[in-house]
Each structure stands twice: as structure tokens, then as C-alpha cells.
């Protein structure tokens, strides 16, 4: 209620502040002189670059330390297309056609995007750490500057290229062109980060691994965002080149790149508006001070870096707007983000034939270095059954699930999946591809996205790896029947718009399982889904899992609680010492002498006689 009543007030206040800013920007050329108008135009160009960096770094978590390189690329493209460079690196003649400049800006934008796509494709691999792209960006910024000076016939060398600006229109007209482009970039970026794709971007930033396991090709998402950010930065550079007619090595350099990072960090990462204001403010102050006190200004920039990163890591905007928001909305308002509802989708999905093996593991052996974990696992997992894998700690249960569902591990033996209805089979897949094929996992410790609401988790999981819209924002999130049942049974109802970190542990487990189920699994692999739950919650989860298996979905559980196993399992496989010791109904397993001694340790002694690491 409070939110409904007060949010118009907030909207009016925000709209008033926004309108004041817009009016100030529109009438600025009338109030400021020619020189100040130029400075303001430059500040807007920097703001475009800052916004694009916020999309890449703030929202998607890709530390682009080479963002200046794309800016420089855009400016250089304009110089080369509109001007004729002589052998000594001087611009001899410039084009007079406005279309040459528009075309040049387009080429600069595309060139920057392509360059970034190549760099991103090289730097974003599963094997490399997610920080590698920062190193590559840093390296690019480090080498771009010396490299630039090496080709004076193209780039103008040390002095750079100058005198290629489009001067057929007044400074005032230029200012409005740039203001218009800035407005468009701002609007596009806001729509993007508020869209479902924006939600995916934050998911990748918050928890890359989980994003992969709900079916998204994380590398492709990152490369796309990286290239998009570079395109916008390239566009900003092209505007800079066209308006000022200057391009030189420092536009590509690390110092400029770090300045961009500070605009974003100062304004407030992942706010879009913050970096926009941060860039305008800092570059205006900077150009005033830089003219008279260059050294002192650089000193201040250094102080600013340190102070922002160390003491106000969220930037200036959130601390400034948070009290306002608290005042208007009351405490705790920041916990909910937007209002999404869930809509139950009753339709089912194609499932493999019941009772036939959907996953067949033959003599699977796997080692972590010298430690041999799996010593020849033979196991058939049948369509539609609820199979519990039990065994002492260190038996290889989690490892078995891990290596079977991720083709990047190399193992001996053979694993075949027959999850398609027509019985066509395939080998192991990478985690995201496995999820898209309907083989969906949930980890032992709940894996959530720290900035996403419950509904947003289900939205992304429900897409099963398909890319969401880059402009639409889904309000009614589709959720399938079993996921909805799980949702209700675990007590998540009514918490759709709560951010996941604020959930209690049991609810996080419930959400995590619901996510896996909402991806329309054919095979659901759950690693101790009841860990840390109360007896009551366990009962609820058990019932829902039975229900899911009842729909014909194959469920594989890793479990320690044998009473729970006895209640839910169709079949039990006992893993011990890296082998399947026995399979059978819960009653058979309970009666088995071999299993008893395995848990007590006698059968273990038998396998332990084998020399460890003898492969």
C-alpha cells in the first residue's frame, strides 16, 4: 500500500529533477559562451563512453580496462575516411560532405565493435579466468599508444592527426547533434539494462557458473556485451573526431581508459545515470582545472581514484539517492525491485521413453591429478525413475555427477545420453549445452544471483538458454506446473520480488530446485537438495520430487539421509571407493550386507588395498 501511495510522489520528484537537467542541457548554449559549449559537448561525448562502460563493467561485470581503445578507433576511423593523409602524417584535405562524416562514424562504430568482438572472442574462454579479459584490455591500452606512434603515415605518429573536423555547422549545431545522440544512447542503455537481457547480464556478473548451468552460453553473452559497449564507445570517439578534428595516441591509452573507469565508479556502477552525471561533472571540472593547473589536476584525479574505490565503492549516486528513496518509500523498499508476477504454464514437454536408460555410464574412470576418484563406474539411469545415489563421503558421488554432465573433463570409459524421445543418443556436453538438452543440475550449496529477485531467477531459468529480449521486460513470468508446485510448497509464494540474498536458507534451496525444474528438465540431477533443511522442509521437498518423477521426469538425487532415501527413491545406487557397489530397491539396499560393511568400512578395506593412483 505504502509503495502504491508514495511512488507517484517519488516519480514526480525524479521527473522534476530530470526535467531540470534536460532543460539545463537544452538551453546551455544560450547561457554558456562558445568555449563553454564546446566543453559541454566534449563532456557529453565522454558521458556516452561512460554509459557504455557502465553497461559492460557495471552491469555485466567485465572489467574493460581498454575501453579507450574503442574510443580511439572511432576517432581514427573518422580521420582516415574524411581526410587525406600525406606521407608525413598531415591531413591535406578534408571531405565537405556531411554524409562522409556520417558514414565514417558508422564505420568507426562497426570497426570498434568488430575489434572488440575479436578481442572478446579471444579472451572469453571457459578455461581462462574471468579476469583474463581485464588483462587483455590492460595490455591493449598499454600497447596501443606506442604502436600508434609507429605508423606516422596512417596515424600521424607522435602528433596524431588534426584538422579534419566537420566545420560546415556551428558549435551550437554540433552541441545539439551530440546532445541528441547522447539522449538516444542513454535511452537505449536504460531500456537494455531494464530488459530481460539486462537481467541476464546481471546474472552473468553475479554468478557466472550458475548462469552457465541454467543453460546460457556465458562467453557469447559477454562477447556480445563487450562488443556492444565498444561500438558505443567507438561512436563517442567518432563524434569526438568529427567535432574536434583531433586524434592522437593518448585517446587510446591506459590513462584515458582509467579516467573512464573513474567516471563510472564515481557516479555509481550499474546505475547508467550515475556514470552519465559523473562523466559530465568530472570532465567539466577537469577541463577547467586542467587548463590552469595540469599537474595539480592529475594529482586530484589520483586522490579521487583512491577515495572512490576505497571509501565509496558504490559511487556517489546511490548514497545520494538512497536517503531520498528511504524518505519516500520507507525502509526496506530497496529490497524489492520492480513487480513481477508468476503465471503458471500448464503445458508439459517431451520426455524420453520411460524405463529405458537415459544416461548410460560404462566403466567411467576419472582422476583429479594423482587422486583416482572414479575407478570404473557402471550405471544406467532409467527414464522416469527417481534414483538416489548414496555412499560414504569421498565415494565419488558428486564427482560422478560433475564429470558426467561436463564434457570439459576428460575421463576414461563411455557416457551416452538418450534424452530425446526418438531415442537418438549423444555423448557428454558442456554444462550449458547439457542444460539446453534437458539435463539440468542443482549444486549442493544453493547458487543464486545476488542482485536478482526470485521471479527474475525463474524467468532466466525458464528460458533454458534462449537469449531474452534486449528491449522487452517481462512482467508475467512463465513458470511450469511442477516448478509452481515446488514454489508454493517451499513457502516462496508472495516473495516473487524479494532479492534472493534476503531469503532464508531453506527458501534459497527451494528457489534453486525450482529454477532447475523451470528449465523443463528431462533429467534432473540434484546434489543433496535437502542439506540444511528442517525435517518439515525435507518432507515437502520429498513430496514434490515424487510428484516430479511422477510426471515422467528422471530425477537423480545424491543423498546422505537414508530414511529420506527410503521414502522417496524408486531405486538406489550405492557408490563406494569409486565404483557402484550395488543397485536395487531401497529395501534391498537396506538389507544388503555389502552395503552395511561399506558404511562401516570392511568393504572399503578391500578396495583400499589397491595402490592409490595406480591408473
Amino acid at each position: 500500500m505504502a509503495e502504491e501511495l508514495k511512488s507517484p510522489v517519488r516519480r514526480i520528484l525524479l521527473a522534476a529533477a530530470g526535467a531540470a537537467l534536460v532543460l539545463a542541457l537544452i538551453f546551455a548554449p544560450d547561457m554558456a559562451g562558445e568555449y563553454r559549449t564546446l566543453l559541454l559537448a566534449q563532456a557529453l561525448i565522454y558521458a556516452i563512453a561512460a554509459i557504455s562502460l557502465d553497461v559492460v563493467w557495471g552491469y555485466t561485470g567485465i572489467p574493460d580496462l581498454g575501453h579507450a581503445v574503442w574510443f580511439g578507433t572511432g576517432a581514427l576511423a573518422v580521420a582516415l575516411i574524411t581526410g587525406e593523409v600525406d606521407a608525413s602524417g598531415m591531413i591535406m584535405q578534408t571531405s565537405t560532405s556531411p554524409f562522409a562524416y556520417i558514414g565514417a562514424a558508422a564505420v568507426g562504430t562497426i570497426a570498434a565493435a568488430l575489434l572488440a568482438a575479436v578481442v572478446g572472442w579471444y579472451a572469453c574462454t571457459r578455461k581462462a579466468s574471468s579476469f583474463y579479459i581485464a588483462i587483455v584490455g590492460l595490455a591493449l591500452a598499454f600497447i596501443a599508444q606506442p604502436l600508434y606512434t609507429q605508423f606516422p603515415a596512417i596515424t600521424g605518429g607522435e602528433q596524431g592527426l588534426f584538422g579534419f573536423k566537420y566545420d560546415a555547422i556551428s558549435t551550437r549545431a554540433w552541441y545539439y547533434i551530440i546532445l541528441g545522440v547522447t539522449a538516444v544512447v542513454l535511452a537505449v542503455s536504460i531500456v537494455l539494462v531494464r530488459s530481460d537481457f539486462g537481467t541476464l547480464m546481471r546474472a552473468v556478473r553475479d554468478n557466472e557458473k550458475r548462469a552457465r548451468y541454467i543453460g546460457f552460453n556465458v562467453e557469447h553473452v559477454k562477447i556480445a556485451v563487450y562488443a556492444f559497449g565498444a561500438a558505443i564507445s567507438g561512436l563517442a570517439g567518432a563524434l569526438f573526431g568529427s567535432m574536434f578534428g583531433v586524434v592522437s595516441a593518448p585517446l587510446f591509452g591506459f590513462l584515458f581508459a582509467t579516467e573512464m573507469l573513474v567516471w563510472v565508479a564515481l557516479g555509481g556502477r550499474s546505475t547508467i545515470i550515475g556514470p552519465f552525471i559523473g562523466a559530465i561533472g568530472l570532465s567539466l571540472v577537469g577541463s577547467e582545472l586542467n587548463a590552469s593547473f595540469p599537474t595539480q589536476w592529475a594529482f586530484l584525479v589520483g586522490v579521487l581514484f583512491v577515495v572512490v574505490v576505497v571509501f565509496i565503492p558504490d559511487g556517489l549516486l546511490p548514497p545520494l539517492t538512497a536517503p531520498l528513496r528511504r524518505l519516500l518509500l520507507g525502509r526496506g523498499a530497496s529490497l524489492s525491485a520492480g513487480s513481477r508476477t508468476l503465471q503458471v504454464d500448464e503445458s508439459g514437454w517431451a520426455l524420453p521413453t520411460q524405463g529405458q536408460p537415459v544416461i548410460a555410464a560404462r566403466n567411467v574412470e576419472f582422476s583429479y591429478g594423482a587422486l583416482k576418484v572414479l575407478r570404473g563406474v557402471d550405471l544406467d539411469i532409467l527414464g522416469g525413475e527417481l534414483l538416489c545415489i548414496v555412499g560414504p563421503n569421498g565415494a565419488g558421488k558428486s564427482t560422478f555427477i560433475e564429470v558426467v554432465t561436463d564434457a570439459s573433463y576428460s575421463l576414461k570409459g563411455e557416457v551416452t545420453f538418450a534424452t530425446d524421445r526418438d531415442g537418438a543418443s549423444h555423448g557428454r556436453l558442456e554444462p550449458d549445452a547439457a542444460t539446453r538438452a534437458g539435463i539440468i543440475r542443482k549444486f549442493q550449496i544453493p547458487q543464486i544471483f545476488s542482485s536478482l529477485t526470485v521471479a527474475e531467477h525463474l524467468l532466466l531459468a525458464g528460458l533454458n538458454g534462449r537469449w531474452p529480449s534486449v528491449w522487452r521486460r517481462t512482467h508475467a513470468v512463465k513458470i511450469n506446473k511442477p516448478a509452481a508446485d515446488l514454489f508454493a510448497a517451499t513457502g516462496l509464494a508472495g516473495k516473487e520480488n524479494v532479492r534472493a540474498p534476503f531469503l532464508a536458507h531453506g527458501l534459497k534451496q527451494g528457489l534453486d530446485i525450482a529454477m532447475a525444474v523451470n528449465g523443463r528438465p528431462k533429467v534432473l540431477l540434484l546434489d543433496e537438495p535437502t542439506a540444511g533443511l528442517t525435517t518439515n522442509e525435507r518432507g515437502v521437498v520429498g513430496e514434490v520430487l515424487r510428484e516430479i518423477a511422477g510426471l515422467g521426469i528422471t530425477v537423480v538425487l545424491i543423498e546422505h539421509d537414508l530414511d529420506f532415501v527410503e521414502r522417496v527413491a524408486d531405486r538406489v545406487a550405492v557408490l563406494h571407493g569409486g565404483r557402484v557397489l550395488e543397485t536395487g530397491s531401497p529395501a534391498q539396499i537396506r538389507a544388503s550386507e555389502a552395503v552395511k560393511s561399506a558404511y562401516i568400512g570392511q568393504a572399503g578395506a578391500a578396495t583400499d588395498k589397491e595402490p592409490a593412483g595406480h591408473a
Partner: protein
Amino acid sequence: MYLFLDLVVTISVMTLVALGLAIILGLMNVINLAHAGLMAVGVYGVIALQREGFGFWSAVALSTAFSAVLGAVMEWLVIRRLYGRTLDDTILATWGLSLILVQSVSLIFGRSTLALDVPVPGGVEVLGVPYSAYRLLLVVFTVVLVLAMGATMRFTRLGLKVRMVMSNEPLARGIGINTNRVRQVTFIVGAALSALAGALLGPTQGITPNYGSGLLAPAFLAVLMSGKTLPGVLIACAILGLTQAAVTVFLNPVIASVMVVVVAVVILRIKPEGLVWQKS
């Protein structure tokens, strides 16, 4: 022969510059871009002290000691607040520190290029060719420093504590090691080493406030390639030094510095964990 000696000197210089970065990254997981600023402080400290009438070596010692104090202040004010933060945060904050140091140096000494007299002038004959004595002395210095560092890590109580903190920090704290103190000492030693490298390299080149920046990139990449071990630093510097020396001969020094970065980036993609692994 000259080529060989140049190569040895290039590798030594790179190692000398990388050492300070290496111990700070290896132990604290902080990429210390303030390194460039500290190198400038080290060399300008020597210039200032020489103007006051100090000899070169005593100036180097005093300048290094001053940087150690500066390192303590930096650690106290900024670095200790960065533990556990993401690498991009530490890069930004330490780069800010570097700007502050470099600009302070510019404010005091101006931006024009200065020079230091070579303290050991002339050449000596090595392997049949005459070669700059000071450059060879730099090689000796590097070898001594590396050996001293290795020995400290392996044989002293401090080294043992450092290795414990490196391999399992919470456990080290749990058994009563003051891990914050260990980190503090590490940063101070690292800062002193950066300044020492800056001071020692002073006589070999023109000195501007930005003088550390050019050496920062290869050293930084070498440290990332090293897998956080001392032998790793040596191997990485050898590879990058070889690249630098070879490309300089065949093309030019600027292309060589570009190639060094490219080679490092490619190696880091193939071996993200670095060239030498910690034995677990």
C-alpha cells in the same frame, strides 16, 4: 657476445623491477600499480639526496628506506582496505596511488628529463668484450636480491609465516599468526623493492616522473605469468626479456615492447595459472 650480455642485462632489469610487484601479488593478491610511482619516488629520492651532497650508494639506501616508510603509510591508509576486494578495484586504487606519487614528484622536480651520473663509470672486459660495469653490477644485484629473497622464504621464520599465510590465510590466523602484520611487512618490503629497482635503474636512462610506467607493463605481466613463485618470475622474465632483446635487434625497441606484451598475453591464455605451480 654483446647480444648475450644485453640479453642477460635485460632479463635482470625486468626481474629487478618485477620483484617488488611479485611479492605483493603473490602474498597479498593485490596488483600494485603504484609500483610505477614508487619507482619514481626511489629514483627522485636519489636525485634529491645527491643534490644534498650524499654519495650514490648512501642515497640509494636512504631513498629505499624512505619508500619503505611511504609504503607503510600507503598500506595503513589504503591497501589494507582493499583485501578481499576484486582485482579491478585494487588496480584502480593502486593506479590512483601511482598518479598521486608521480604527480607529487612532478610538482617537486618538474617534468623535464634529468640524469644521474653512473656511479661505477667505465667498462670491464667480460668474455672478451668490454661492457658497462654498472650494467653488470645490476645483474649481480639482481642475483643477490633473488637469492636473498629465496633464502628468506625458505629458511627464516618470517618466510615460513609468509608461506603459511599464502597457502591458507584463515588457518594461519587461526593458529595465532598476525596475518595483517605479515601483509603489512610484505607490502613495506615490496614498496622498498620497487623504489630500490627505480633507484638502481636511474643511472641507465633518462629520468622523468613517468619513468616507471614503461617498465611496469612487462613486469606486471611477468608477475602474472609467474604463478606466484620465485622461479616462475625468473622464467617469465627470461621469456619476456628474450623477446624484448630479440625483437629490438631485428626491428626496433617500440615494437619489441609491444611484442613483449603480446607474448605475455598469449602465454597467459594458454597457461592461465602461470608457468610454475605452487606445490600443494
